[in-house]
């Protein structure tokens, strides 16, 4: 049993932390969002240069085949700085889908470009009527002699507005679900882009008679759902890591604020009722870090990964809500203003709770899983 980071992991963490410190001051982030861009292309290039983009990808395509712990190291630091760059959409989900489902040729053609930072991806899978049920796909893919035709709709597709390539899931006549490579701008695809509350971007997709070439289908597996399930669990886990980073910052900022904010002639952090609530915030953060660690180590060994992910996502979602609410409440009025960073951490935490299955959804899956002693 060993809970220490390796030297390489420690270096990676320091390197990501330095990036966040230097590039993600609150004002710099605000300017980035105000510019209307989804994120900074130069940051993304830097990620490629520093080799980070290789971490999650398979070795066969120039990746490092990093562990869950490796990926989480990056995401936790991203969470500390509310980094906007679409790690999970492009790498975990997009590249992950290509690596899991794509033919060798497709992998060859696309993944090296991902590692080089040249390709942005978006996985369009969930649909309005499906909520978090990743198996309830109503979008249809019909195979014609010389093309595929897709009809349906996808909701809240992360990073879609910036994606060079969309990966769209659809149900084939066989009943299986396949994933298709779709270039933005293809006729029959309507994209309604918007900003999310957390500053990232997403879109609703409408597919009406969307025609795709026959080689647009990712690989030849009869059903992509099992692989997509694994990818979304990975995404959920990394979102948990991000949440832990964000919560740690919220706790720290709240403690600092209450140590300096004076009311009734004293720092409000001297009030015992508030002290106990911050102690409870600390417990929430530490318990979250612990259950994240459990899930990461389970993912890197051979345990029951869905159960572990669900335990972590539901517990951390609960913590995120409480820590976010308390951070705002203890900051008082300025806590609900756009000009203070605190609220933006809370927004990201709300988004994380809503993504990849919310707390109750995961609690249900956890509760109905098998119970080893």
């Amino acid at each position: 049993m060993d809970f220490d980071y390796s030297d390489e992991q420690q270096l990676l963490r320091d390197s990501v932390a330095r990036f966040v410190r230097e590039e993600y001051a609150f004002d710099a982030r605000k300017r980035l969002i105000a510019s209307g861009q989804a994120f900074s292309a130069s940051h993304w290039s830097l990620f490629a240069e520093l080799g980070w983009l290789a971490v999650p990808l398979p070795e066969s395509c120039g990746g490092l085949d990093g562990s869950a712990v490796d990926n989480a190291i990056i995401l936790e630091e991203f969470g500390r700085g509310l980094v906007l760059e679409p790690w999970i959409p492009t790498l975990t989900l997009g590249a992950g889908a290509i690596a899991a489902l794509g033919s060798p040729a497709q992998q060859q053609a696309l993944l090296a470009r991902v590692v080089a930072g040249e390709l942005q991806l978006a996985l369009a899978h969930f649909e309005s009527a499906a909520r978090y049920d990743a198996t309830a796909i109503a979008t249809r893919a019909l195979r014609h002699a010389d093309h595929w035709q897709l009809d349906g709709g996808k909701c809240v597709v992360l990073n879609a507005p910036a994606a060079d390539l969309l990966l769209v899931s659809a149900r084939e006549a066989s009943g299986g679900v396949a994933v298709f490579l779709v270039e933005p701008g293809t006729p029959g695809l309507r994209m309604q882009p918007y900003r999310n509350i957390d500053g990232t971007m997403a879109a609703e997709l409408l597919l009406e008679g969307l025609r795709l070439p026959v080689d647009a289908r990712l690989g030849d597996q009869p059903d992509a759902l099992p692989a997509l399930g694994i990818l979304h669990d990975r995404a959920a886990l990394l979102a948990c890591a991000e949440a832990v980073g964000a919560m740690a910052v919220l706790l720290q900022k709240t403690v600092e604020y209450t140590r300096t904010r004076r009311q009734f002639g004293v720092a409000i952090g001297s009030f015992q009722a508030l002290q106990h609530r911050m102690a409870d915030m600390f417990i929430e953060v530490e318990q979250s870090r612990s259950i994240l660690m459990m899930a990461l180590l389970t993912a890197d060994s051979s345990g029951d990964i869905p159960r572990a992910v669900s335990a972590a996502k539901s517990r951390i979602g609960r913590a995120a809500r409480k820590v976010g609410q308390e951070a705002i409440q203890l900051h008082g009025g300025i806590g609900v203003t756009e000009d203070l960073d605190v609220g933006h951490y809370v927004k990201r935490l709300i988004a994380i709770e809503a993504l990849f299955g919310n707390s109750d959804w995961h609690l249900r899956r956890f509760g109905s899983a098998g119970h080893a002693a």
Partner: protein
Amino acid sequence: MDIRFSPQETAFQEEVRRFLADEYPADIRRKMQGGLQLEREDHVRWQQLLARRGWAGVNWPVEHGGTGWTPVQKYIFSTECALAHTPRIVPFGLGMVGPVIYTFGTEEQKARFLPDILASRVWWCQGYSEPNSGSDLASLQTRAVRDGEHYVVNGTKTWTTMAQWAEWIFCLVRTGGPELKPQAGISFLLIDMKTPGVRVSPIRLLDGTPEVNEVHFEDVRVPVENLIGEENRGWTCAKYLLTHERTGIAQVARSRVRIAELRKLAAQTPAGSGGSLLEDAFFLRRLAELETELIALEYTELRTLANLSAGKSPGPASSILKIKGTEVAQALDEFFVEVAGLHALPCVPEQFREGFTGDHVGPGTLAAAAGVYLNNRKASIYGGSNEIQRNIIAKEVLGL
């Protein structure tokens, strides 16, 4: 003990319902139900309709043009308004400065200000909090220095709701010196916002709404006849408002309407386990728990009303109404975010403005749920934070 309305009360309820059915403008109702932002003009139009009916001064005594209603009538009125999705009456004029003026003002001041307030011809806002005086209101630093027939006011007020629409502001200002206790050196002053030196700068809240502001005063000259009550006795007015009239803060009827809306949306939302979210026991259990809390809160409010009817003060126990009222409302905010699912993410404020013609993202108002949630976190902070309310219960009710 009897839960039923008297025949007179039932008749009154009918009268209110009829009024709302006949007079409440359909376009405002549509905005309210669709979660659209109201304009200044919407509020004014609605309140002037009430004024014409003689129902604007809900809490005002008859002698000043008020309704003279019993607490039960007020309860019926506010319940029916909530069920009809009307806007809440903007409190600063009718709920706050009006009562202060008819209680503490001179005859001249009453004649000058009350009619415009009652008729919603003048928009008021409230200048209490300052950047360094939140829960500790008595530490406020905005100074008013007497100079002949004027006070010269310097300082900054904050969290001033709808100041961008206001024509007048009522302020707590410091007139006394440091030799006085903090509460003893404060005065209650009315200031015309058009006076030179008054500047309003907006504060954006987390959902982006332009709702609260900072109001800056730089050598603002205010005639002494705008002082309400005695100099250095303004704390009396402030305290009067705090304890005077807290019915309505529990927002029971509004929460009931929202629960009905939530149930409707949940019934249309798949749970991911076969049925709808409303059939899902995980969801249902928490919702049922919240509903029992709301029922209890409703009766806590009714008990407070009964005390008022009996001529007793609502007393500090009404801090419960503030605490539980905001807790229930905020729990409901969370439920809406939960039902929104992935559609909690999109931030598309333009689709909640009048005249939006694009494709609507997310079902109903759900894509606004996170914004509402974030905005409404303020409810447990302002008007005496819930921490201050617990202090009040501990000290004034429990004697700790």
